[in-house]
């Protein structure tokens, strides 16, 4: 579904990505692992159009995405939950979710709202609350819920576990698994490699801007280097 080929991205003089290659098939959860500064966020931001590559191609169902502005990439069916959540603090929970469905006018919006509330009942209780006053975990739920409101084909998740208590991390990952079983394709960036590999089908290891390793989740989890560097053994 998504194909990234020889992707180079630079911040001025700093070359953040060097020849990144990756693929996500329909219905998969694919995870990108890597240390701080490896280029995971840069990869996702380039896919969703926030950053422009200096070289390489990105295609979604064979249609090129490079050069397409971010709002038009959303209309192609890509939703991005950015690192640090970036919910709209001054808007209510409901308004945040409405913004998630900004481009839609179909009749499925109400159903999707129900689906989000089924996944995150806490959001339903907080519907009229200003989002800036939500707890960190609730904000993460809102960020994911807001992206689901776009009814995307591909969901990009950047460190959904960041700053959350272990119980909540487990809950968020269960939810991601559920969403995937309902048919959503997911590209997941995570520092928490153990968790990510437990729900992913395949994965890539990103090291200083290049793909160092790839394989199925089981292969990666068994790989001695991955175990040492990312699973803390």
């Amino acid at each position, binding site marked *: 579904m998504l194909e990234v080929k020889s992707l180079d991205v630079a911040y001025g003089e700093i070359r953040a990505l060097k020849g990144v290659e990756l693929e996500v098939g329909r219905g998969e959860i694919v995870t990108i692992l890597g240390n701080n500064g490896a280029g995971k966020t840069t990869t996702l931001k380039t896919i969703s159009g926030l950053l422009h590559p200096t070289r390489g191609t990105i295609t979604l169902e064979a249609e090129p995405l490079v050069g397409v502005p971010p709002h038009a990439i959303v209309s192609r069916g890509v939703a991005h939950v950015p690192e640090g959540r970036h919910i709209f603090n001054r808007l209510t929970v409901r308004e945040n979710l409405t913004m*998630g469905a900004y481009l839609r006018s179909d009749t499925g919006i109400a159903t999707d709202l129900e689906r989000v509330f089924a996944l995150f009942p806490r959001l339903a209780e907080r519907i009229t609350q200003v989002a800036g*006053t939500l707890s960190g975990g609730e904000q993460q739920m809102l960020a994911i819920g807001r992206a689901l409101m776009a009814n995307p084909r591909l969901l990009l998740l950047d460190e959904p576990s960041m700053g959350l208590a272990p119980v909540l991390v487990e809950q968020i990952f269960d939810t991601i698994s559920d969403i995937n079983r309902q048919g959503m394709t997911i590209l997941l960036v995570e520092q928490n490699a153990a968790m990510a590999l437990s729900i992913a089908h395949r994965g890539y290891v990103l090291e200083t801007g290049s793909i160092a390793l790839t394989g199925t989740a089981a292969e990666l989890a068994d790989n001695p280097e991955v175990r040492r560097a990312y699973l803390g053994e």
Partner: protein
Amino acid sequence: MCMDVALLVRIFPEVLLDGIILGFMYALIALGYTMVYGVLEFINFAHSEIFIVGAFVGVEILLGLKSVGLLDGLPWPIVLVLVLIAGMAASGLLAVTVERIAYRPLRNAPRLIPLISAIGISFFLQDLIRLVESLWRNAFNMVYPTIDVLNLRFELTETLDVSVKSLVVIVGAVLMLWALHLIVNRTKVGTAIRAVAEDQAAASLMGIDVNRIISLTFLIGGAMGGAAGVLFGVQYGLINPYSGFIPGLKAFTAAVLGGIGNIPGAMVGGLVLGLLEAFAASYLSLLTGGAFGAEYKDIFAFSVLILILIFRPKGLLGEVVRERA
């Protein structure tokens, strides 16, 4: 010191009314500053000219109607609505055009650069209005033609009689502010304006075309300014290409007073400044036995402003929402 308390009391309703009218005028203009600041964190110094262009379009249409005999032929509410809509459309579209030509190409430049560009546009528009009016009418000081009904006065109380045009200005301003409130707080596109104001990148990830929302913000802010321009002309009668400067500056101050970027703040700030100014103009000399005359009204109003900002640097309504990182 001789203070005539009875006089103070007697003129109070009238001063209050003057203050409210002035305040609504400032509030309408202030919206243009504050909405643009909200989405771009940039002061559109050309907004004072966008405001006065509304007044000029208004006077031109009224003069045009007069010359074909329709000014008294058409019912006056229709004339007013027509003029308001034309002024709003002209100022709104002008604001959008200015953003496209003079600000958008500088979006990524250091902050001072678009500010200088705005000041340049401000001078440019002043002289453009002067040029056009001079060529077209051989004069650039314009007088709003009178519509007789508007000058009718009726007595509300013994000490207060109100002219129809004052009522028109107040009702017009309240309707504008209310419409704006509905658009910003009750519609999807209004929510998108607030989303863009808060986080442009995140807004674009929602599928919001940020540039379009920025244009829309200039359109709405400009239209409010244009409406204020027409009401200004109707109320005070006399305009010239430079008449926008002082009300613009005061409206900008009102926006800061209310909390720049904050829409209800602009309304509150405008009213507070208008009232301060009106009361200072009428009461200063009475209260000080003539030591300070009405000419000190701005000093008084701005001293209060400075005091308020010392104690509330973010303005009266600035940042009321508690935020987490």
